[in-house]
C-alpha cells in the first residue's frame, strides 16, 4: 500500500484561550516570506463555520490550518502533492511539517503564547478515499507502517493507536502517548 496525502493534526492545548484573529496576519507573513520548501499562496478564513477548518493557509504542496474539525482545535497539515520515497518518508514529511508549523506558531510573538500545541495526542489521516478507504484491508496494510513510524516518533516511549470506524470518514489513526511529550521532542526523533 502506498500511503500518500498524509494529514497530521496536533491539538491545541488550551482551546478556550485560542484567538484566531491574530493568526491571519501571521499566515499572511508566511506567504510573504516563503521561507520553507513549499509554495504558500493564500489564506482562507472560515471562522464563521462551526467545527470547520478555521483559518487555512493554502499552499501548493500542502495546506496548514488551525482547524476545529470534529470540534477539536488543532494545527493540521494536509499534504496535497505526492511525496516520493517510502511510506515512512511520507509519514515523516507530513509529521515534520506539522511539528515545525506548531513550533513556528508557538514562537510567534504576535500570538502572545496563546496558541500552544501538545504532542501527546496526534490525529493522522490519509486524505484519499480510493487509495485508502476506511476499511479493514486498509487497516491491515497501514497499521504496520504506522506502528513503525510511531515507535520512531515516540522514541521508545509507550503509546496507543486507535483507528476510526466510520466507513465514510477518511482513514484515521488517533495516537496517544502515555506520557506528555513536546513538539520539539517529537521533531528531534524524526530529524
Amino acid at each position, binding site marked *: 500500500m502506498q500511503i500518500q496525502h498524509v494529514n497530521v493534526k496536533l491539538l491545541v492545548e488550551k482551546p478556550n484561550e485560542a484567538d484566531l484573529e491574530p493568526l491571519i496576519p501571521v499566515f499572511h507573513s508566511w506567504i510573504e516570506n516563503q521561507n520553507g520548501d513549499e509554495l504558500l*499562496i493564500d489564506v482562507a478564513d472560515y471562522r464563521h463555520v462551526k467545527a470547520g477548518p478555521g483559518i487555512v493557509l493554502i499552499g501548493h504542496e500542502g495546506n496548514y490550518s488551525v482547524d476545529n474539525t470534529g470540534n477539536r482545535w488543532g494545527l493540521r497539515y494536509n499534504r496535497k502533492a*505526492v511525496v516520493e520515497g517510502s511510506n515512512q518518508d511520507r509519514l515523516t514529511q507530513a509529521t515534520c511539517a506539522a511539528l515545525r508549523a506548531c513550533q513556528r506558531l508557538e514562537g510567534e510573538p504576535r500570538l502572545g503564547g496563546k496558541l500552544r500545541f501538545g504532542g501527546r495526542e496526534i490525529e493522522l489521516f490519509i486524505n484519499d478515499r480510493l487509495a485508502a478507504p476506511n476499511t479493514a484491508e486498509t487497516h491491515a496494510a497501514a497499521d504496520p507502517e504506522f506502528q513503525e513510524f510511531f515507535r520512531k516518533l515516540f522514541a521508545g516511549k509507550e503509546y496507543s493507536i486507535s483507528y476510526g470506524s466510520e466507513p*465514510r470518514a477518511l482513514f484515521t489513526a488517533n495516537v496517544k502517548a502515555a506520557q506528555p511529550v513536546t513538539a520539539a521532542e517529537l521533531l528531534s526523533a524524526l530529524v
Partner: protein
Amino acid sequence: MKVSNPLWAERLAGKMPEALAREIDIFETEIALRKQGKIDERLFAETRLRRGTYGQRYDNGQRHNGKTVQRLEYPSGELTKGPNTMWDAPGMQRIKIPAGGLNAEQLETLADLAEEYSDGIAHVTTRQDFQLHYVHIEDTPSVMRRLAAVNITTREACGNSVRNVTACPYAGVCPDEVFDVTPYSRALSKFLLGHPDTQNFGRKFKPSFSGCAQHACGLASMHDLGMVAVTRTENGKEKRGFEVSVGGGLGAVPYQAKLFDSFVPPEELLPLAQAVSRVFAARGEKKNRSRARIKFLVQDLGIEKFKELVLEERKSLPHDPRWTDYVKDAEQFHEAPLRPAGKPPLLGTESFQRWVKTNTRPQKQEGYAVVTIALPLGDITANQLRALADIARRFTKETIRSTVEQNLVLRWVSQSDLAELHKALEAVGLGDAGAGTILDVAACPGTDTCKLGISSSRGLAAELRKRLEEKNYELDECVQNLHIKISGCFNSCGQHHVADLGFYGVSRKMSGYAVPHFQVVLGGEWEHNGASYGLPVIAIPSKNIPEVVARLTERYAASRKNGEGFKGFVTRTGKVELKKMLEDLARPPADSSDRFFFQDWGDPREYTLSDLGVGECAGEVVSSVEFDLAAAERELFEAQVAWEGGQIEQAGKTAYRSMVQAAKALVKIEASTIADDPALIVGEFRTRFYDTQKFFDPFAGGKFAHYLFAAHEKAGEPHTADSTRYLIDEAQLFIDAAHSCYNRIAAPAIA
C-alpha cells in the same frame, strides 16, 4: 495531484452515465494535450470553463503582499491553463445543481470532494450551484467522475454557455405556487445541456423558473430567460403554461427582463428556448464582451423585433421529440414524504421557537414543513454535509434543495418531527435560526478567491453577521426581515441590486492611498421575482459599512409609516436625504496613520488593486470551428495512443474519424446544420473547399485534401500497422491544413 487520479475512471466504470464518462475522458485528454502544448491556451481556457473549471485569484502567478507584488513560483513554471493563468494555480470547480435538487448520496459525494480536493468547505452560490475552491486542474477529472457517478455534471457550469437552470426551492410544496415547476426546469436543463444550438454564444445564458409571480424565490425577472408558472382555461380545462420573459440580468447595469409571451404551453417551452438560443448565437455580440449578454441584444433590437426573429427561427426548427416527450411525466411529477403528516410543536426551548419562526414554513400539504438550513456565507463543511445526508434520510425521502440565498432546504418534514430535526441539526452546528432574515447575509466570493473582486464581500458579510447576531433579538421586527446582499465588484454575483441593503465593491483614493469601499445600493425588491432594482446612493469605506447598516436600519425602524417596506422608506426619504445621512462616513479618516481604513475586512494587508486579474466569467470567445478542430486533434491523439497500444484497427478508424471531424468543422462554416454523415461531409467538403480551392495551401495546393479523399475511399477496409501509421501522419497534416484554411478564412473578419 492525487495519487489515485489515474484509478477513478476504472473504479467508476459502469456507474457513470456513458455520455458523461466519455465527456470527462475527453476533458482529461485535453488536459494532457495542453500539458504537451498541443492545445492553444485560449481554447483550453474556454474548454475548461465549459466544464465548470474556473480560475481563481493569484492564478497569474502574482500576489500583492501589502507592500509589493510578489511572484508565486508555481512548480510547473510557465505552463498555463489559459491566458495569464498558471497551470498549478489553485482554481474553482463549479458544480451545476439544476433546480437546486440534491439527494443524500450527492451530499456525501460533495463532502468527500470538499475534503479530498478542496479545503474542507463546499460553497453554495447565489444560483444554486456548489463551488469547491483551491482545486488543482489535474484533479478535476476525478472530481467530475465522482460527481458523474451520482448523476451530477459540471458541464457548462461556466463559460459562454447555458448555466445552471435555477428554480424556486419551494416548488411543489409552496402554498402560493401555481404549479410545481421542478420537472419543467429539469427538462429544459437536460435539453439545453450540450445542445448544438447553445455552443456558440458570445456570453453566458441563465434561465430560471418560478412557481408564482409574487415571491422572490425564482428571481425570474433578472434572468436571461425567466419562466413564471401560469395557467389558463382552454375548453373548460385548466392548462399549464409559462409567462416567459427574456433579457433580464444584473451586472454593472441591471436590466429587467422583457415580457416575451404571457402564456407558453409546456410543449412549446423547449423549442422556444432553442429558438431563443439560436437567435442569441447568431445575432448576439461576440467581440465586445461587455455588450454580449442577451439583454443587450433584446435592448438593441427591441422586444418586438427580437420576438419576431425568435418566432421565425421557431418555425424553421426541425421537430425534436424531446420537446414533448417529458410533458406527460411532468404533469404527474410529485415528491413523497417519508413520515406521516404531523402537528406543529407547541412547546420547545427559546432557540427552538426562534428557529421554527425563521427557518421553517408550512407546506401546502398539511402537516409538513420546509426547513431551511442557514449556511453562513453559503459555506458548509464536509462533516456537516455527511451529517445532513443522514438527517435527510432519517426525516425525509432525501428531498433537499439549494437556494439562491445560499442555503439548503429540507422539504417534506413532518411537523411533528421538527423538534427532533432541530436537535439533530444543532448537534452538527446547522441549527441556527435567522434564515431569510437580516442575519442571512448573501455574498459572492469577492476578493477571497475571485479574480475580479475589488472589496472583500465575504469579509464584510462575516463582520455584519457577527455584529447583527449580537443584537439581533433587540432589532425591530421590520429590520429583522430585511435582506443584505454583497458583491465584491459591480458584476453583481452577490445580487446586491435586489436587496433592501445592497453593497458592491469599489475602490477610492483617500490621503493618497487606495481604500476599499462599497457602493451603497438601497431599496431593491427581492419579492416579485426581483422586480425592481435598488438605488446607488454613495460609496463608503468598507470599514464604515457596519455603521451604514446601523444608521439606516435605526432610521427605518424609527420613521416607518403604516407598515411601510424598506423600498417605500427609501423612496419616501429620497436619495438626497439618504446621502446626507451617510456623507460623514464617506470622509477619509482624520489620521491617515491609522491603517484600519486602508485594510479590508479579514485581510491585514495594505489594500491594493494589484491583485485584480482578468475575469473568466465572460469566457473566451472561441468559435465552434475551433472547438471542432480541437475535437479532431483530440481524436487523432486517441488514434496515436491506440496505435502505440497495438490497437491497430481502432487506431485506423479513429484517425479517419479525426479527418472527417476536421472536414466537418470547415463545412459547418458554410452549412451549419450538416449531418454527421461521413459521405455527406466529404462530398460537401469537396464541393465547398476543394473545388473552390479555398482549402488549398499556398505551397502544397490541394495535396492534403487528397489524404481525406483517399482515407474516405478506403474506409471500412482492414488496417495494418504500417497503413495506420501513414494514415495518422496524413490525418495530422490534413488537420493542420484545416487549421490554416480556417485561419485564412477568419483572418479578414478578425482584422
